[in-house]
């Protein structure tokens, strides 16, 4: 197996002109990221700026309701309100130490864009974020946040005008500006070495969760770890620590969209097929001619027609299980978490919560289940308002 692959998935399917910056990045990972200076500064930033460790919280009410021990890894309590900042602080620090004065990023809902803009402001880097024109219109608050942080947001008008098209434009910028620019990719996607780099920056989630779990329960390992999967960075961040421990069930939850037959969804692992997009071979939503299909979810952060190649490999090997949750199930779980635990979760994370609440019988009574609460729901209030209105009418 080539080092750039996870099983049959991954690789470096990019124009030749992007190979030199990928080699440069690989070298920088070996020489800088794996060095003590980077690790010391990164740990300091995660503690003092991001606010880590994030709590591992046992939900007393949901646990009583279900007969399970339901734990939330509270990534929603990080600075900027989601797990995305773990990765952007790492990549921005790397850009600084590589001597790159400029970083670029793609964003869908705007969460990765805001996390990149935040890291760039803090590190004194110039920052440009590509965002589909459709997303710019529906995520106006995040556009304003990025602009306040000094970032230039470029609206992308090509293709479906969403995340995948923003990613295409970011690659083009990187080809043209590779000498000065680091591409701060937002998930465990893209060509090698990005899926590994982003996973390693996010793996702090699983490492913390494991030691917190042991400290709080005296037990060694939970029965299961559960996370939502779009590109899949919060999930890989939680899963990575537990992959070698076969007793721990690993469950990734994809977005099924409305769940109606023929509707668009974002379940590339459950319903997609292998193909090549954004530099990697992975599971994709595509038609018989190899054209990428539009995706859909009420959770903008899951709205992507591909997924990280390591997830495709974990599914193929059977080590992880991937399941689907639809918009209505996710919204129901959102409301339950608000009312029963006083936590307003992101609609993305609500998919992971929904799977556990709707499938209690898939676990043994008393099982310890860790769910990654990857982000907070403040960003979703507009769509939640619409959903509530629709419910009242219906």
């Amino acid at each position, binding site marked *: 197996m*080539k080092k*750039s692959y996870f099983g049959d998935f991954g*690789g*470096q*399917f*990019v*124009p*030749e*002109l992007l*190979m*030199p910056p990928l080699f440069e990045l690989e070298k920088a990972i070996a020489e800088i990221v794996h060095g003590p200076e980077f690790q010391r500064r990164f740990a300091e930033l995660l503690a003092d700026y991001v606010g880590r460790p994030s709590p591992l919280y046992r939900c007393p009410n949901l646990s009583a309701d279900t007969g399970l021990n339901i734990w939330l890894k509270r990534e929603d309590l990080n600075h900027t309100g989601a797990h995305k900042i773990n990765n952007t602080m790492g990549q921005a620090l790397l850009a600084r130490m590589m001597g790159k004065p400029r970083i670029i990023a793609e964003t869908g809902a705007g969460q990765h864009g805001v996390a990149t803009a935040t890291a760039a402001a803090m590190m004194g880097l110039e920052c440009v974020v590509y965002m589909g024109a459709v997303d710019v219109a529906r995520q106006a608050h995040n556009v304003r946040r990025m602009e306040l942080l000094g970032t230039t947001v470029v609206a992308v008008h*090509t*293709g479906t005008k969403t995340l*995948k*098209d923003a990613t*295409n434009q970011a*690659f*083009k910028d990187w*080809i*043209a500006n*590779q000498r000065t620019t680091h591409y701060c990719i937002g998930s465990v996607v893209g060509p090698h070495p990005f899926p590994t780099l982003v996973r390693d920056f996010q793996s702090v989630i699983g490492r913390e969760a494991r030691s917190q779990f042991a400290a709080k329960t005296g037990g060694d390992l939970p029965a299961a770890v559960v996370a939502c999967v779009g590109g899949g960075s919060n999930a890989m961040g939680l899963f990575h620590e537990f992959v070698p421990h076969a007793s721990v069930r690993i469950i990734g939850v994809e977005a099924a969209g409305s769940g109606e037959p023929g509707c668009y969804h974002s379940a590339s692992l459950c319903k997609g097929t292998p*193909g*090549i*997009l*954004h*530099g990697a071979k992975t599971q*994709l939503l*595509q038609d*018989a*001619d*190899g*054209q*990428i299909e539009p995706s859909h979810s009420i959770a903008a952060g899951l709205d992507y027609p591909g997924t990280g190649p390591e997830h495709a490999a974990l599914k193929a090997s059977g080590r992880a299980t991937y399941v689907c949750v639809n918009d209505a199930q996710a919204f129901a779980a959102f409301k339950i978490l608000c009312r029963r635990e006083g936590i307003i979760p992101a609609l993305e994370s609500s998919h992971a919560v929904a799977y556990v609440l709707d499938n209690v019988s898939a676990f043994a009574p008393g099982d310890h289940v860790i769910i990654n609460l990857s982000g907070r729901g403040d960003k979703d209030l507009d769509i939640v308002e619409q959903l509530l209105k629709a419910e009242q009418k219906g």
Partner: protein
Amino acid sequence: MHAPARTSAIETAIRKANAAGRKALIPYLPCGFPDVTAFWTEIESLDKNGADVIEIGVPFSDPAADGPVIEAASQECLERGVTLAKILEGLKARKGAISAPIVLMGYLNPFHQYGFERFAADAVAAGVSGCIIPDLPMEESDEIKTIFKANGLDLIPLVGLNTSVERLRAYASDASGFAYFVSVLGTTGDREVLPEEVSAKLKVAKGIFTVPLALGFGIKSPDQLAAFAESIDAVIFGSALIRHLREGKSAASFMQRWK
């Protein structure tokens, strides 16, 4: 042990132009532009008006290396229902009617979905001579290269300003057809000025490749080529041709400028 050297129709066509004292001309059009029927008329017109090799674009929903002109044209072609299967059918129906060798240029995923083995067989049956696949660097090309070789198809490498001598040599070691030199660190689309570095790097590449060297990405007019005349054997133009057709002008009048 080496198999007997196969003669590449693409290389032969380029060498023939060079022997006549000129650079070979390689126009590019995405299949389905300006529309599904006019496309084939324009291809026939390019063929009759001096195209030495013709490059046909296979549209893809997510092009990561095209400039705005080609991207927009490809998008329209997709909306018109163009697929790789239909391109091959169209070529098969016209086999023998187009004298210039045909190269398909497209991103990997449509070929992957079609199946590499099945594609190679159907491409040969349709009279295709080779492919340019911009998101397939040498690290990922072993499988397709083996299949192409067995079927007598050229896999044309793309190289550029930031390609090291070591990598140029690796690409040269089993290139067939020609080598595509990308003139800018950017995406396709014509630019007013070509960077000065191009000239120096082209000389290096010329010394390494034994197949012809073609210059593309950003070629707008014949005067741009004077500086590189010694190093290149062929020139590729896409955006400039698309823009010309969008102005309502003909492929024939475009080719006039280059003869």
